[in-house]
């Protein structure tokens, strides 16, 4: 569904992604693993064209999305859940969802506010609260819910478990499993291997912006030396 090939991205002069290649098959949850600073977030942003890669190709459903503006990529069905959450703190929960709302898309679930409140009951109670009044976990749920309002067929989920309470992490894992069962394809960046194991089928490990491992999570578990070499304890 997503093919990233030989992508190079820079921040100013810093070369962050080096000939990065990875692929996300339809219907799978792929965990993008790597240490802090390995380039996970830059990978997400490069796919979304929030960081413009200097070279390389990015295909979504066979069509090149490199050089498209971010809103067009979103319109194609790519949902982006940023690591920093970036919810609109001055807007209410309902208004945040409204910003994400897009027309229904063929082959993807058409989400409504009510469905999302079923998925994230905490948000339902807070629908009229402003974003800044939410807890970290609630903000994380809101940012996922907001992206789902765009009825994506594929989402980029950047470190959803970062900085949220263990209960919420568990809830998040259930949500991702449910989304997967509804046919959503997910590229999930994670430092938390435990969390990745609970939800992902495939794993890609990157180090210094280049792919160093690709395979199933099962295979990865059988090779602890790779884990120790590239992932933090």
């Amino acid at each position: 569904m997503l093919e990233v090939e030989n992508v190079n991205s820079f921040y100013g002069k810093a070369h962050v992604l080096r000939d990065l290649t990875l692929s996300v098959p339809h219907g799978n949850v792929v965990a993008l693993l790597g240490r802090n600073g390995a380039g996970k977030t830059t990978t997400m942003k490069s796919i979304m064209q929030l960081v413009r890669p200097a070279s390389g190709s990015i295909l979504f459903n066979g069509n090149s999305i490199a050089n498209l503006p971010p809103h067009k990529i979103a319109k194609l069905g790519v949902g982006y859940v940023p690591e920093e959450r970036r919810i609109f703190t001055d807007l209410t929960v309902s208004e945040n969802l409204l910003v994400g709302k897009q027309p229904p898309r063929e082959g993807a679930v058409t989400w409504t506010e009510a469905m999302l409140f079923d998925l994230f009951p905490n948000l339902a109670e807070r629908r009229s609260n402003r974003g800044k009044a939410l807890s970290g976990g609630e903000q994380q749920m809101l940012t996922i819910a907001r992206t789902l309002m765009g009825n994506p067929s594929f989402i980029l989920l950047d470190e959803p478990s970062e900085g949220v309470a263990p209960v919420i992490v568990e809830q998040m894992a259930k949500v991702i499993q449910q989304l997967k069962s509804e046919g959503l394809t997910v590229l999930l960046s994670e430092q938390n291997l435990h969390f990745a194991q609970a939800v992902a089928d495939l794993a890609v490990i990157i180090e210094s912006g280049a792919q160093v491992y690709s395979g199933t999570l099962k295979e990865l578990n059988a090779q602890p030396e790779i884990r120790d070499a590239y992932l933090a304890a």
Partner: protein
Amino acid sequence: MEFFVAQLLTGLANASSLFLVACGLSLIFGVTRIVNFAHGSLYMLGAYIGYTLMQNLPGAVGFWGSILLAGIAVGIIGVLVEVLVLRPVYRAPELFQLVATFGVILVIQDLTLIIWGPEDLLGPRAPGLRGVYRIMGEPIPKYDIVLLVITPFIALALWYLITQTRVGVLVRAATQDREMVGALGVNQAVLFTGVFALGSALAGLGGALQLPKGGADLLMDFHILAPVFVVVVIGGMGSLPGAYLAAVIISVLNVFGVTYLPQSTLVLMFVVMVVVLMIRPYGLFGREEVAGEHGQVGEPELPIKPASNSVRMIVMAGLALLALLPVFGSSFAMVLTTDILIFCLFAASLHFLLGLGGLVSFGHAAYYGGGAYIAALLVTHANSPMEIAFLLAPLGAGLAALAIGWVCLRLTGVYFAMLTLAFAQLLWSLVFQWGSVTGGDDGLVNIWPSDWLNSTTAYFYFALLFSVGGILVLRHVAHSPFGYALRAARDSKRQAESTGINTQKVQLLAFGFAGFMGGLAGTLFVFSKGSVFPNELEIARSFDALIVVFLGGVKTLAGGVAGAAFFKGVEDLLTRFEYWRLVMGLLIIFVVIVAPQGIVGSIRKAAIRLNILKQGGQT
């Protein structure tokens, strides 16, 4: 009591236009992060277009239809401005778009002059609303009553649009994080254009609505800017209720001011603003400015380094050429070069603040004109010799800058910028209205240098010495530890503070120093011309300096000077033509679009490409 109520009602009616224009400005800034200086020009266009429509459309329907159509027409003009001028430069460094809006101001000024001529137009009376209502025995124009009744409805409609519709939600979301809005599938370009159209339409509507009260003239673009900035700052950027309340406060105050303190109406507005900001730094309903958190474009600042030998050689050659000018140049060439040198110093002093300090002052003319006026006042009222004036005037300007800086530096970003502009306008209004001391509009004349400088050649050398000396001092300071501290404060206030730099103090000193140098330029100016008029303190003068600094290149040390030399030279050429503003405006817009790094930045880029200069430093 009756009189009091009548005054209050007049004030409320006057608030109408001010509110609409301020709302538009605030809306546009919120989403696009552009302080649209051309907003006053759009307001002016609204008045002129409304006037022409009213001439052709009869009756009450024609009158109100004209107002509405004027709003729509200006909205369309706004779209043109956004698409043609601003869209190509959204990705340019922050604030660079400002310069483009200056260009738009000049273009609109001349187009208006070409289409409608130089005479002030008397606005037509609203049909059926010619007389007055008697309220508690006091006559209130009927049109005023209508205005004060409909304004709250317009405000309500806007409030509904912003708070209750998806468009409004998107606008508010984009105000906070426009990149994220884009990542969620919203086409920012359409949103920006839409917001620009709406904001412009509001300005046009405001211009047309005030026709029966004020008419249309070619100065209204600049005249509305200061009150609008004041309203936006007092009300709080992006707040509708704030804008309304502030517009009412300013207008009511103005009406009472005319009655009780007719000499100080202009000053009063700024006094109120300063008081409000002392108590509530981000305005009555405003929030702290968090621009730049997300979605801002711009490369990290490059370090600056001392000029390379080849650059030094070029500069030395240029200076030698200047020093020889009296040998081969005409006296006209010397006068023109003196003007250019003085302007270069003025621009360099602003560049010091803007480029190195990251402090965008919209009112740097306050210190330039201030220095000129202090010198002129000393000569006129104290009979002081030129030498004393040369000593005291820059000092006075520096002290004024310290005082004003002390207030302004409590704020950051656009609030800071607007406050500096407001202070400059305050000084301007003081000078303009305090005729007994400053000569008002007639200015101060007969301010000539001492005998030993009383020839064009002597004064040329004098100006050369002080301008180049001043610029070199500014450069030197940029490379001193103080300059490092200033740049550290610009790049990251928090980190600078944690390394022990008192950023507040450093920035205040920089502000004072830049004021001093601006004052020196002003003093040089007044003795070269022998007179000074309030226009040396005007917004337009501050803008001149901003334009050259941006055009020259903010991020290059030589930017201010190069821009000033270029701009003054071109201006001298162009002002010989009748519609020079049009050409100048188009030229500015052109430079902004093709050379978003400014003149020096673009030359350097070319030089790097041609391997003349090494990458990684600034000269």
